C-alpha cells in the first residue's frame, strides 16, 4: 500500500518533465522538413498534391502545430497513443509488439554489466597496483572508449562471419517454427552478441565505480572493526564491505537506465533487432509523429519505473534511508 502510494507520488512528480519532453519533441519535429504524408507519398511512389492535401486533412496535419499538440495531449490523458499512419495500427499495438525485445536486451545487458562490473571491480580493488588491477582497469578503459557499434560490427565479423558460431542479426530464426525450449535457446543465441555489445560500455563504468567504492569502504573504520574481531579477508569483504560498496552502484543503475535505452537504438540497428530503439529510428525517418511520441512516452515510463525500483532496492540495502522516509 505504501509502495503503491509512493509510486503514484513519484509518477505525479515526473508529469511536468514528461510534458516538457513531449512538447519539445513535438515542436522539434515540426522544424524538420517533410511530414508523415510526404513519407507516405514517397512510399507509394508519388502522387498528386490534391491527394496529399486530403491525407493531411485526414490525419489532422493541416491544423496549426499548437492545436495538434493540444489534441495529442488530450488523447494522451485518455491513455490513447493514437494511430500510426505508417503501420496502419494503433501506436500502442506497434509498441507492444516491439517492447519485449528491448526489455529482454536491456535486462540481459544490465544484469551482465552489473554482475561483471561488481566482480571485476572487487578483484581490481583487492589487487590494487598489481597486474590483475592493471589488466582489468586497462580493459575497462578500452571498453569505455570504444564505440559500441564498432564492437557490434567486429563481433559480427569475428563470431558470425569468420567463425560462424553465432547469428549475425535478428531476434530469432524466422520461419523455423521453433517452439518451447528450442525457441528460447534460439533467441538466447541471437541475443549473445547484442547483449555483449550493449553491456560492455556499462560494465566498464560499473567496474570503475565498484573499484573506487570498494577501495573507499575498505579503508573505513567498521572494516577495521571487523578485522579486529578476527574476521578473515573474504569474510570482511562479503559481510561488511560488499553491501556498503554496492550503494553507489545501485544509484548509478537508476541514472543510467535512460542512457541504456538510448544505447539500444544503436545496438538494435546494428543487429537488426525488431525492438523499440529501431522503431524509434524508423519513426524519425518516416516522420511517424504519433509512434515517436508514443515511444518517448513509454520510454519515460520505463525509466521512471526503473528508478522507482532502484529506490526501493536502496531502501532495502540501507536502513538509514528507510528510516528517513
Amino acid at each position, binding site marked *: 500500500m505504501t509502495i503503491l502510494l509512493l509510486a503514484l507520488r513519484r509518477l505525479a512528480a515526473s508529469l511536468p518533465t514528461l510534458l516538457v519532453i513531449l512538447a519539445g519533441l513535438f515542436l522539434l519535429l515540426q522544424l524538420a522538413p517533410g511530414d508523415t504524408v510526404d513519407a507516405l507519398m514517397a512510399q507509394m511512389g508519388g502522387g498528386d498534391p490534391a491527394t496529399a492535401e486530403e491525407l493531411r486533412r485526414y490525419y489532422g496535419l493541416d491544423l496549426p502545430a499548437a492545436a495538434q499538440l493540444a489534441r495529442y495531449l488530450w488523447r494522451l490523458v485518455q491513455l490513447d497513443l493514437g494511430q500510426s499512419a505508417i503501420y496502419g495500427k494503433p501506436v500502442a499495438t506497434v509498441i507492444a509488439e516491439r517492447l519485449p525485445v528491448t526489455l529482454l536486451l536491456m535486462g540481459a545487458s544490465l544484469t551482465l554489466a552489473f554482475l561483471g562490473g561488481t566482480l571485476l571491480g572487487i578483484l581490481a580493488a583487492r589487487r590494487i597496483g598489481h597486474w590483475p588491477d592493471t589488466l582489468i582497469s586497462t580493459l575497462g578503459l578500452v571498453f569505455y572508449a570504444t564505440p559500441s557499434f564498432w564492437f557490434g560490427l567486429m563481433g559480427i565479423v569475428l563470431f558470425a562471419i569468420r567463425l560462424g558460431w553465432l547469428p549475425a542479426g535478428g531476434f530469432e530464426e524466422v520461419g523455423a517454427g521453433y517452439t518451447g525450449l528450442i525457441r528460447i535457446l534460439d533467441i538466447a543465441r541471437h541475443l549473445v552478441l547484442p547483449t555483449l555489445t550493449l553491456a560492455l560500455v556499462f560494465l566498464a563504468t560499473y567496474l570503475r565505480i565498484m573499484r573506487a567504492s570498494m577501495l573507499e569502504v575498505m579503508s573505513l573504520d*567498521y572494516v577495521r572493526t571487523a578485522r579486529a574481531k578476527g574476521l578473515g579477508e573474504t569474510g570482511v569483504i562479503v559481510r561488511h564491505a560488499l553491501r556498503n560498496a554496492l550503494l553507489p552502484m545501485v544509484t548509478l543503475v537508476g541514472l543510467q537506465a535512460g542512457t541504456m535505452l538510448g544505447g539500444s537504438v544503436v545496438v538494435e540497428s546494428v543487429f537488426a533487432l525488431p525492438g523499440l530503439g529501431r522503431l524509434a529510428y524508423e519513426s524519425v525517418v518516416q516522420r511517424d509523429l504519433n509512434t515517436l511520441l508514443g515511444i518517448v512516452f513509454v520510454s519515460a515510463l520505463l525509466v521512471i519505473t526503473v528508478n522507482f525500483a532502484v529506490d526501493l532496492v536502496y531502501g532495502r540495502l540501507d536502513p538509514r534511508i528507510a528510516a528517513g522516509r
Partner: protein
Amino acid sequence: MMDRSAGPLLSVENLSVRLPPGADRSHALAGVSLSLAANEILCVVGESGSGKSVLANTVMRLLPPGVSPDAGRVLFQRRDLVAASEAEMRRLRGAAIGMIFQEPMTALNPLRRAGDQIAETFRIHTRLSAREIREKTLALLTEVRMPDPAAALRAYPHELSGGQRQRVMIAMALALEPALLIADEPTTALDVTTQGRILGLIRDIQKRRGMGVLFITHDFGVVAEIADRVAVMQAGHLVEVGPAEGVLNRPQAPYTQALIAAVPPLVPRAARAGTAAPAILTLDGVSKTYRKGGGLWPGRARVTHAVKNVSLSLPRGTTLGIVGESGSGKSTLARCIVRLLDPDTGTIRLGDTDLAALSRRAMRAEARRVQMVFQDPFASLNPRRRAGELVAQGPMLRGVPRAEALAKARALFTLVGLDPAAMDRLPHEFSGGQRQRIGLARALAVDPEVLVADEPVSALDVSVQAQVLALLDSLRDRLGLSMLFITHDLRVAGQICDRIAVMKDGAVVEAGPTAEVFTAPQAAYTRALLDAVPGRAWIPGRPHAPAA
C-alpha cells in the same frame, strides 16, 4: 587462559615501526619498550602524531599498508605477535585481544543490526548455536548497561546514540572474555557525562574480569580517572613511564611536565576587575526550532526546539562561556547571533541594534560588528586561497583597497602570533593551531565588537590549546573585545570565562559568574556536568590532591 602470574601479559620490547618513505619522520615508533600486567590499566598518553595509536594497532597487527615493524618484539602471553602468522593473529583478534575504537559513529557497520555485529564475534571464534549466541549477546548488552538490551539487539547503529554505540563496541570487544583489551581513545568523541559512564564501565569490567587494559588517550583528565600506570609518548619515543600517581603529580621528564602544565585545572579563574560593565550584547527570549518532514502537512512535521527562550547578556569587555553537551543548542544559538540562522522569536540586541529584526541585506552591513571563529580549523578555511587573502578578504568586501587590506592582514598575523612571511602559504601548509590563529585573524580583520568562538580549541592538542586560550585572553584585553565562548569542556571554560551559562536541551539551566557556577552550582544538571569531568579530583601541579 595462560598462567597469568608468570611475567607480564603484554610486553613490548624495543619496538620500532617504520613509516613509508615521504612521511614526516622515518619511524612512527622508535625503540619503545613497556609492559602490561594482567589486571592493570596502562594509559598511553601523547599528543597527535606521538605514535600512540600506531602502538595499539601494532599489537593488534592492524597497521595500514606500508607501515610495519622493523625491529623489536611484542610478546603477548609469551607469543611474539610481530612474528605470528596472519592465521594465528586472526585467532587471537577478538578472542584473546579485544579492541575498542575512537569513533563510535563510524566503527560500526551502518547496514547491519547491532546484535548481529556482536554475535559475529561468537560466530567467528566459536561453534555455539544461534540460540546460545543470542542469549550471550543479550547478556553482554546487559553487562555493558545498555538501556533496553532487547531493543538494542535489533537496532541499527544510526538508531543508537554515541554512548550506546560505544557500549555496543565494548560488548563486541568483551564478547569472548579477552585477556587483553586495547582501547584507542574510546571516549574522546563522547559527551562528558557519557564519557564518565563509559570510563566507569570499562573500569568495572576490567576489575571484575581481571583483564589487562591498554588505554590510549590524549586527555590527562581521563588518565587521572582510570590509569594504574601511565606511559607518556612524544614523536614515537617513550618519554616517561610509571605509576599514575607519580607521573601525574611528580612528572620527571620535561615534556611530561610541559604537557601537564598545559592541562587547564578544573578551577575557576580569579575574578577580573571591570567585569560589571554594561552589556554590549543582550539576548531576550531567543528561540529557534527545526522542522523536518511533513511536506504538505505542516502539522505532521517533526519539530525540534533547538533553542528555547534563551535570555543572556554579555557585559562589554568580558567573556561569557556557553557550556553544554552535544545537542544542547549552543552552536545553534551562536549561529543565530551571527545570523547564519534566523531565530524564530526574540531579540538580539548589539548596542542599540536588534540583529534579529534586521533584513538579510541590513545584516550584511552589521556583520562586521559580530564575527565568528569556528571549531574545525581544517574545514573552515578555503583550501585554495592563500592565508593572507583569507584574512584580507573581509575588509576588501567592505571597500578597503587591496594593498591596505593586505597591510592590515600583515599586522594581524603578527598580532595572533604568526609569521607575516607565511601569508602567501595555503591553509594545508599550517598546523591545526596555526590555522585556528588564521581563523582568528580573519575574524579580527573587520574590527568586530563581539567575537563568537564556537569550540575554538576542542580540535587542538592540549599544549596548542593552552597557547590559543592565552592568545584569546590577551586579545580581548588589548582590543577591548567582548567574547562569547562556546565549549563542551568545563576545564577550558573555567580557564577563560568570566561568566558561564549552562545549556541543556536548548534552554539555559544556570548562568552566573564562573566561580559561583563551579563552587556552588544551583542546577542539578550543572552538578552532574561538573561531577562527570574526568580526573576532577586531580589538580595539575598540586601533588597533595589524591588521584582518583
